[in-house]
Structure formats: structure tokens, C-alpha cells
């Protein structure tokens, strides 16, 4: 009840026009409300059910993700497919020199990232690992976090986990990173004194201005955003969500964001990987 009334107030305050707000009792269930689109949350989850950001989007936006041709992210994926077998760096190697076919070697990899690397004594996102291979094994230059090449490669790797449930490990050495991410998620920050939890846990299914709030999961990243008109990383999204509440964003690939990535992945543990997804 209360959630509905707040949505109504938000709408009135910002007069966006005839956007129909939270569903009233007699309206048919919205896609994100339907049981068949829900996934059982992991043990200890603060959410009653998990639902992908996909189900909060309009049918037109979902259609762009449903067909790999309509999805512009595949322009990057195709580029990465040829990059996979392209020799680069002083070692004279390509990704395929060590990893053979991407369909086989990278199957299910993204679903369990980020992971704790004993060798590097830190949490590694896929992006970190790709650059680790480039620098150490290929003797090639790092790719920038948000470069077309990196986004294409992480999408190609993500694609090999499509449809598989997110399944990160948060125990053992990962525990303290997980806890740091959890803390970050709940920390109020910025001029508006808001935490991630306030928007994505307390208010999903409501409008913030005209934006329809989801549970803020990471299972679709990298994501082609209609707004960006390009593919973007999860850490770019973090920066956006930080900026919006007028909080100082961290750097892409920073330990803070990588810990947050781990915690967020666990919040969506069991959701199917959708990389590369399409969002508004």
C-alpha cells in the first residue's frame, strides 16, 4: 500500500505525463511480478524473490535483447570473435593459443566471476583477468576498462555463460571482500544520502521520475544501453548510480567496485546470465 502511495507522490511531484504507476489490485500482474519470472534467492538473501532487470523493461526493449541480430552488442561480440584468434604482444600469442575455442574454454566462466585469486591476493573481475593474461602471458598492452575491445571480449566471454545461473563463491578467502561489498551497498552517500539498498531493495517496481526501478542486478552485464547508445560495463553503471545521488564515484576496476560486484552477483545468485543484455 505504502509503496503505491509513494509512487503516486513521485509521479505527481515530477509530472511526467501519463506513465501508469504501480499496478493497482485489479490490474493484471506486470511481467516482473509474475511468479514464472521469479528465481529463488540464495540463503540469507534480503529479497523474497529475485527477478532480472529484463522483466522491468518494456516489450520493445526486451525485443532488442531477444534477438541477437536486433541486439547491437553483437557488433562488439563479432569483433571480439576475431580478436580472440588475433596474435598481439611480444609473446606472439593470441587468446586462442592457450584457451583454444572460446565456446569450450570460457563456458560458465563469467557465471562464477568475480573470483578470489590466490596468486594475486585480490578479487578479480573478468576484465582484470583478461588484462592479466594480456600483460603477463601475451606481453601485450592492457586494454582500457571501457574500451570497445575490452567490452567486446567480456561480452564474448559472458555469452558463453548465457542461460547459466550466476554462481559466485563468497566463502573462505572471498568472505572479507564480500563483506566489504555488502557494506558499500548499504552505505548512505552523496548529497541525497541514499544507498543502493534504498532504490533497489526498498523500491523496485516503482517509478523514480519516469524510470522504472528494478532490483539492480548484474546478470546482464556488459549491457547495451539505449541511453548510452553503446555497450557499457557494470562499473560504468556503478559510476552512474553513484553520480545520480551526487556521490563521488570510484574508478572502474577499483577494489571498492570489484567487492561491490561480488556482493551484487551474490544478490542475484541463481539468476540466469544474460550478457550482453539490452537495457533502457
Amino acid at each position, binding site marked *: 500500500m505504502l509503496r503505491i502511495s509513494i509512487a503516486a507522490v513521485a509521479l505527481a511531484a515530477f509530472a511526467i505525463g501519463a506513465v501508469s504507476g504501480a499496478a493497482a489490485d485489479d490490474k493484471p500482474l506486470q511481467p516482473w511480478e509474475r511468479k514464472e519470472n521469479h528465481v529463488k534467492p540464495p540463503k540469507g538473501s534480503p529479497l523474497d524473490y529475485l527477478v532480472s532487470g529484463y522483466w522491468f523493461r518494456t516489450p520493445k526493449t526486451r525485443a532488442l535483447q531477444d534477438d541477437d541480430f536486433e541486439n547491437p552488442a553483437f*557488433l562488439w561480440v563479432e569483433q571480439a570473435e576475431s580478436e580472440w584468434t588475433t596474435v598481439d604482444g611480444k609473446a606472439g600469442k593470441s587468446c586462442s593459443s592457450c584457451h583454444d575455442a572460446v565456446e569450450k574454454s570460457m563456458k560458465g566462466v563469467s557465471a562464477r566471476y568475480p573470483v578470489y585469486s590466490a596468486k594475486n591476493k585480490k578479487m578479480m573481475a573478468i576484465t582484470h583477468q583478461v588484462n592479466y593474461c594480456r600483460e603477463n602471458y601475451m606481453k601485450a598492452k592492457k586494454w582500457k576498462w571501457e574500451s*570497445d575491445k575490452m567490452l567486446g571480449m567480456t561480452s564474448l566471454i559472458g555469452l558463453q555463460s548465457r542461460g547459466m545461473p550466476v554462481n559466485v563463491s563468497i566463502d573462505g578467502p572471498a568472505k572479507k571482500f564480500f563483506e566489504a561489498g555488502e557494506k558499500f551497498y548499504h552505505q548512505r552517500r552523496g548529497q541525497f544520502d541514499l544507498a543502493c539498498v534504498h532504490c533497489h531493495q526498498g523500491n523496485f517496481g516503482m517509478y523514480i521520475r519516469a524510470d522504472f526501478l528494478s532490483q539492480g542486478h548484474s546478470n546482464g552485464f556488459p549491457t547495451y544501453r539505449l541511453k548510452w*547508445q553503446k555497450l557499457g560495463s557494470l562499473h560504468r553503471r556503478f559510476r552512474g548510480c553513484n553520480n545520480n545521488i551526487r556521490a563521488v564515484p570510484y574508478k572502474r576496476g577499483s577494489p571498492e567496485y570489484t567487492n561491490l560486484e561480488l556482493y551484487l552477483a551474490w544478490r542475484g545468485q541463481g539468476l540466469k546470465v544474460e550478457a550482453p543484455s539490452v537495457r533502457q
Partner: protein
Amino acid sequence: MSRPRVRVPRKIKKGDTVTIKTLIAHKMETGVRRNKKTGKLIPRKIINSFEAKIDGKTVFKAALHPAVSSNPYISFAISPKKSGKIDFVWTEDGGKTFTKSAKFTVA
């Protein structure tokens, strides 16, 4: 990174009309945006035209303006009378072109 993608049905039934889909990676710089640091206008650079030819004959043509989104997607219909080859050409401001082609059979 301007490599285009096209989707052309390989087999077309005689008399049928089929949908062709195309996509090309391009910024479609409008010419009205300013560089955030210098304040200078970023020069316009868009894909301004697109053409599809079947065996050398134009079947569909488009002129695009800056209102077309980045990574332009264009779909259209064809109803070819016989098997052939379809060539696609995208032209950027300044004259640079990008091409792709596909074969199909009509039976």
C-alpha cells in the same frame, strides 16, 4: 569498428516478400554536441546514406540525418524474382564507404 552485420534469408520462396536487417557500428556524431573540456563543437560525422543493390540494381535506398541513433539499424523488404547477390553500401560524411554482401536463392 565499423564492421556491418546483415541478416538476409538464404532461401526465398518465389513471390514471397522477406525482411532484410542491417546494423553498422557508428557513432553518428550529430555536429551539435560540444567537447566537455574545450567547449568546441564536435564536427558532424554520420552515416548519411545506405543503399542495397541486387545484382547491381538498386532495390532500396535511404538517406539518414543526425536524428538516427548511433549504430544505425535499418530493416526493409525485398521480393526478388530470381536468385542473386545483394550488396550493401553505407556512406559516411566525407565519402568513406563500408560494404557487405550476401547471396540468396529464389525457388
